[in-house]
């Protein structure tokens, strides 16, 4: 009998590996998601029925816990708007981290008198990482959903402070590991230190870098899952956790690459610290355009580019954008979408939204294709994007985003920016694009502006 309980998790582990592999290819991604889910389900069933030396299995609590969690998780996943997806991932990740921290607490309460170096040190490490992943993800969630503004989360000397807290935590883990036990007060103190680090680690990092941070915290939760696997001697947890941990690190580096940033400079917050030199002052006039004029211009264009950003997500304008694409194509205008790798709040965010609106896959251009296409474009419409089209990244060495690859919309004949106001973008940087000679602004909610243009296009019947 025992052998089945060893073999089933092996099948689960293979499913996890295949699932993750399939998830990274567009054609097999759906299958991969199901495979991984089945792999985890097998692991859970085995964990429930695995023969353990215990008097009472507490099955009632397990069933209640799983049903409650399933209902909450399922409803949250179904109800969340596509635009809020990144926050949701962050929230789920934080809960996973807290779960790992709770596992450590339960382990400590169950074994509070015994313990040797190996176990105690591992459990405390898990507790630390779990709490950091939890509060870090919550802060990231707050920043992404706009509930937590960067200017309220600045911490003086954040880097030094973080290194000190990290040092204290490591010393504490080694100390209590050697001791093999700790008192309740010491445990509470250690938990508080862990939570403080979770906050001070993420809080000073600018909101624009949150995608990278979430990916990093996701990787961290994977590592806690792996350590929890060591604690409970479960190989499926160990394997699944490490897979997430290592693939998460690669994904984090890929994202940094897309933003032309180094991971260490994200973590040590050079983005959020005040720039050393003053940014170049921007001078010039801002010109506006009316929806009617823009409609006429679009109708007479040959090639049009849409550059979507977070503003499109907020205004839920993707369906209107698609409608406009159809109408323009009817009139013989070529329409393409220029997608910056980090447009929106997470890589691929725009692709998901546009896919939701049934925009065809081959109309989405990546960064290099876009910059090639933009040279031939008559009208480039920037829909709620800001930092990813900011020419300061190319022109102003003092700018905080200097060096980040951008969509060079100024190469097109005419740029129209749909924007709510002149406020700077998410990174808090002024955008000289708005003052360029071939740029015109159309202020207002992206969706409403687009609807007005759409009406004009229909009525004009050009």
């Amino acid at each position, binding site marked *: 009998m025992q052998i089945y309980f060893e073999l089933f998790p092996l099948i689960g582990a293979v499913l996890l590996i295949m699932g993750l592999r399939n998830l990274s290819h567009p054609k097999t991604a759906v299958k991969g998601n199901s495979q*991984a889910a089945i792999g985890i389900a097998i692991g859970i069933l085995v964990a429930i029925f695995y023969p353990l030396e215990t008097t009472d299995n507490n099955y009632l609590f397990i069933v209640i816990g799983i049903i409650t969690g399933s209902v909450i998780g399922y409803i949250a996943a179904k109800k969340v708007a596509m635009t809020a997806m990144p926050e949701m991932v962050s929230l789920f990740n934080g809960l996973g981290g807290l779960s790992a921290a709770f596992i450590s607490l339960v382990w400590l309460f169950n074994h509070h008198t015994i313990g040797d170096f190996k176990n105690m040190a591992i459990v405390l490490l898990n507790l630390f990482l779990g709490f950091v992943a939890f509060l870090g993800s919550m802060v990231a969630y707050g920043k992404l959903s706009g509930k937590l503004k960067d200017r309220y989360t600045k911490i003086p000397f954040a880097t030094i402070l973080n290194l000190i807290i990290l040092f204290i935590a490591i010393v504490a883990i080694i100390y209590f590991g050697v001791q093999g036990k700790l008192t309740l007060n010491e445990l509470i103190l250690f938990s508080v230190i862990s939570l403080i680090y979770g906050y001070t680690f993420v809080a000073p990092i600018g909101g624009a870098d949150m995608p990278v941070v979430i990916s990093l915290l996701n990787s961290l939760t994977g590592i806690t899952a792996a350590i929890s696997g060591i604690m409970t001697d479960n190989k499926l947890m160990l394997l699944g956790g490490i897979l997430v941990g290592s693939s998460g690190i690669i994904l984090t580096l890929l994202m940094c690459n897309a933003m032309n940033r180094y991971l260490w400079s994200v973590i040590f917050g050079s983005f959020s610290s005040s720039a050393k030199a003053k940014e170049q002052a921007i001078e010039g006039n801002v010109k506006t355009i009316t929806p009617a004029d823009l409609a006429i211009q679009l109708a007479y264009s040959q090639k049009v580019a849409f550059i979507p950003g977070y503003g499109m997500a907020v205004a839920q304008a993707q369906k209107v954008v698609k409608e406009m694409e159809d109408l323009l194509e009817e009139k013989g205008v070529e329409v393409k979408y220029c997608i910056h790798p980090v447009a929106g709040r997470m890589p691929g965010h725009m692709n998901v939204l546009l896919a939701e609106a049934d925009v065809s896959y081959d109309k989405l251009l990546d960064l290099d294709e876009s910059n090639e296409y933009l040279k031939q474009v008559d009208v480039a419409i920037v829909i709620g994007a800001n930092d990813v089209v900011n020419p300061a990244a190319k022109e102003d060495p003092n700018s905080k985003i200097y060096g980040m690859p951008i969509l060079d919309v100024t190469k097109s004949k005419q740029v129209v920016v749909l924007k709510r106001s002149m406020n700077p973008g998410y990174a808090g940087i002024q955008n000289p694009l708005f003052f360029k000679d071939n740029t015109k602004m159309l202020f207002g909610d992206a969706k409403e502006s687009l609807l007005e243009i759409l009406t004009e296009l229909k009525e004009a019947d050009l």
Partner: protein
Amino acid sequence: MNEIIQFLSDNMTMIYLVVFTIFLGFEIISKVPTVLHTPLMSGSNAISGVVLIGAILLIRTTPKDHTITMIIATLGIVLGTINVVGGFAVTARMLEMFNRKKRK
């Protein structure tokens, strides 16, 4: 120092498994299109919900009269389940959108 060497020699199989899995994780993800970054992150986040297994294994050996421990353990299960179920459901929803368009 002796303890560390002892620890290493006791857990050699485990260490092999860890090292190989790290490389496996690197290899699987190294070529992934930008379109899939968000679903992939969401999917791997759901996988990290395997902590649920640990929560289940631990609550089974927890004495029922330890009220606080039982509460924390049950909460651990609830949170882990939210991570797993919510994570996979959100990923499925994202991927559904890519699929619906393909069938056209």
